[in-house]
């Protein structure tokens, strides 16, 4: 027992010594931000599109800020867990995160109190519009053909691409509603992401998949899937042959999945300015632009205030549609 006590004392003494050393050697004044590694939280899994954007942005920030930027995936709960973790972080600039379009949707569904206003917006980095995909051997040449068939057989066609109430579900419901059709005339089959939905399209389980073009790209390239329209104001740079929804069906409906970098609410102005400048530089860099065109992602930039306005507008328009099609609480 005595030996144990002695050892405990020894451990305590060494701990104390380390403590003192730490306090003494720590610089008295705070060095310029950032003086230690920065963490970038991603609410979605490694390997996905958001993760890919986050990782390239992190590597570019790291070059600019001169400190390591570690990407940390906080997954689960359809993004709620990670978005919450970003909002809960200490607003010292050492924890930032990437938020996705879901932040403008989740609170309408009653899943969380969080919205775009819960953060310090830093930069909008990317926006991918939804597309309407069918099998390559489907008998439709245009979106009108498909819509006419749906109208003639309500309930027979099933669509997929993401979970129940997800962004691509909303894309479909909003599109149908905008051309004066019942959103329920195409029942939604929840899937574990766009890849699973596309595989079900191949297997004949569903007939329509509304997801972004980069997600469907490999199967479009393989000649197994074709895209009938994209829900955007302008055609895609990746596949300029695909018409916009306005051109194909006369509907003004647009929707896309966007991603941007934020900090927790209450970030110091100096830190926020420094990060905004670094992100602007990252967006304009050749590396980021090459990454966007390589993956087929759509680029879209806005600075902090611009991103805040963009989120507020996205929040309002998504909320209105979600109420209209019965996806909001």
């Amino acid at each position, binding site marked *: 027992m005595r030996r144990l006590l002695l050892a405990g004392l020894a451990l305590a003494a060494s701990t104390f010594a380390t403590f003192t050393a730490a306090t003494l050697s720590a610089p008295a004044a705070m060095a310029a931000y950032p003086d230690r590694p920065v963490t970038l939280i991603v609410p979605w899994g490694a390997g996905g599109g958001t993760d890919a954007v986050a990782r390239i942005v992190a590597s570019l920030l790291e070059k600019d800020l001169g400190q390591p930027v570690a990407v940390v995936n906080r997954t689960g709960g359809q993004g709620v867990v990670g978005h919450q973790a970003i909002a809960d972080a200490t607003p010292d600039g050492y924890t930032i995160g990437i938020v996705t379009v879901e932040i403008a949707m989740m609170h309408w569904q009653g899943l969380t109190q969080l919205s775009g206003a819960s953060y310090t917006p830093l930069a909008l980095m990317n926006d991918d519009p939804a597309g309407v995909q069918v099998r390559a051997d489907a008998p439709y040449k245009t979106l009108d053909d498909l819509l006419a068939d749906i109208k003639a057989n309500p309930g027979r066609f099933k669509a997929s691409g993401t979970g129940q109430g997800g962004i691509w579900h909303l894309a479909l419901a909003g599109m149908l509603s905008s051309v004066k059709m019942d959103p329920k005339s195409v029942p939604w089959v929840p899937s574990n992401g766009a890849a699973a939905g596309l595989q079900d399209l191949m297997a004949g*389980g569903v007939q329509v998949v509304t997801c972004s073009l980069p997600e469907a790209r490999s199967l479009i390239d393989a000649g197994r899937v074709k895209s009938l329209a994209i829900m955007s104001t302008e055609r895609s740079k990746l596949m300029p042959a695909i018409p916009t929804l306005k051109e194909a069906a006369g509907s003004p409906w647009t929707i896309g999945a966007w991603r941007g970098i934020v900090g927790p609410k209450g970030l110091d102005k100096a830190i926020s300015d420094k990060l905004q400048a670094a992100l602007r530089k990252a967006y304009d860099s050749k590396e980021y632009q090459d990454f966007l065109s390589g993956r087929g992602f759509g680029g879209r930039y806005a600075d902090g205030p611009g991103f805040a306005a963009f989120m507020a507008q996205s929040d309002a328009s998504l909320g209105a549609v979600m109420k209209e099609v019965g996806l909001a609480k």
Partner: protein
Amino acid sequence: MNAVIAGIEMVLHWHVLATIFVAAAFGLLVGAIPGLTATMAIALLVPVTFFMDPISAVGAMISCSAMAIFAGDIPATLMRMPGTPASAAYSEECYAMTRKGEAEVALGANVLFSALGGLFGTAILIVSAPVLAEVALGFSSFEYFWLALLGLTCAIFIGSGSPVKGLVSLFLGLFVAQIGIDNPAGTPRFTFGNTNLLGGIDFIPAMIGLFAMSEVIRTMASGARDWSVRQTALGNPLKGWGRLMVKYWPQQLRGNITGTAIGILPGAGADIAAWVSYAMSRKLSKTPEKFGTGHVEGIIESTSSNNAALAGAWVPALVFGIPGDSITAIVIGVLYLKGLNPGPTLFLNNPESIYAVFTVFVIANLAMIPLGLAALKAGTALLRFPRNILIPLILMFCIVGAYAVNNSAYGVVLMVVFGVLGFLMEEHDIPVAPCVLGIVLGKMLEESFVTSMIKSDGNLLAFFERPISAGLGVVTLLVLILPVWSAIRARRAAAT
């Protein structure tokens, strides 16, 4: 053909090869320590693979698991203590050989036939996986539903002992899989308003708890005392390999085929393969009376079998995305993280990755021979390491591993909860393996059922309308009904 060459090239980088080698050494280490399973070795490896490129990550898991399964034979032979459950079937036989002074023959046979078994399983994987992949492109939620159900059915047979207790464990796993919002309806279930629970129960911390921490608690409770075992000096294990191969080629081949077949079956893995092969070897032997007295015949068949099963388990994992055993269950998670989503689209989009995986299999199994021989020496040294130092260190690695899964203390909390749960379950002879499979397959079962019902407008007969689905359905129902039927018959026969 270009994909084949590209795949081989992806592996032949020094950093990939070095990763494979280091992971193999780690697998040897963990596998050779009794109580630590190949599954645990892989689970501990998971956080590390987050930071590797996909091929290195998959290569690390393949070589680590192959080595761990083989390494379990070392303490089994030297001390009658199976290093992993897969060695349990024939540890007595190996130990009997050691007592007869034939330790080198037994260990030599373990190294050689483990490697050959692994290569045979790999060959089947290479030949049959692409064919199965073509078929699998036609798999919709209807087929996946039957596959998930079939996997769960097999899971009941993982645990020895009471089937009812296996079922309790399975239902517990299914319940755990239901927690959170990631379900077809997108409705939060059993979350009590907690954001972490909204995200559900991550199966890796749960598994580290169920398998590893429960074992640590048990060992700590008994004081983590050292074993009192006398080590046997090893002779030349290479002695007599040629003779064994000529004499026992039918046993080896049978073990390979049985192992691969069982490995392909979802829910059945290397441990069951070893038991089945050992039993089969005894049943078909010309000299069954020699079994149990230190006879190499049964060892050859079962040691081939458990390593062949390991490769076989990858066929459904890669092609169907469903785990053949608890090792591939973890690997599938890693594949998803790495963007190599298993399933037919993997074959369509990334054929070179598939060939890279095959290449890793061949390299890992060939490397097993020199590494295995070296490990015979190292293994004996490790067993002399004081356990009261080793076990706390293992617990620390569990904590860090559970934390790193999602970079949050929530993972550690999950690990503790499931550690205590696993400890209590095993105290009551409730196997933990079905619970883990329930967690892994539960989501797939529910998703495929609910989405199928949406597609068919609630018509249950839709599960029999597609040809593959109907076939799978009949097989599943047979597997479910046959044991019940034979039990009833046995009871009737006993009554009369």
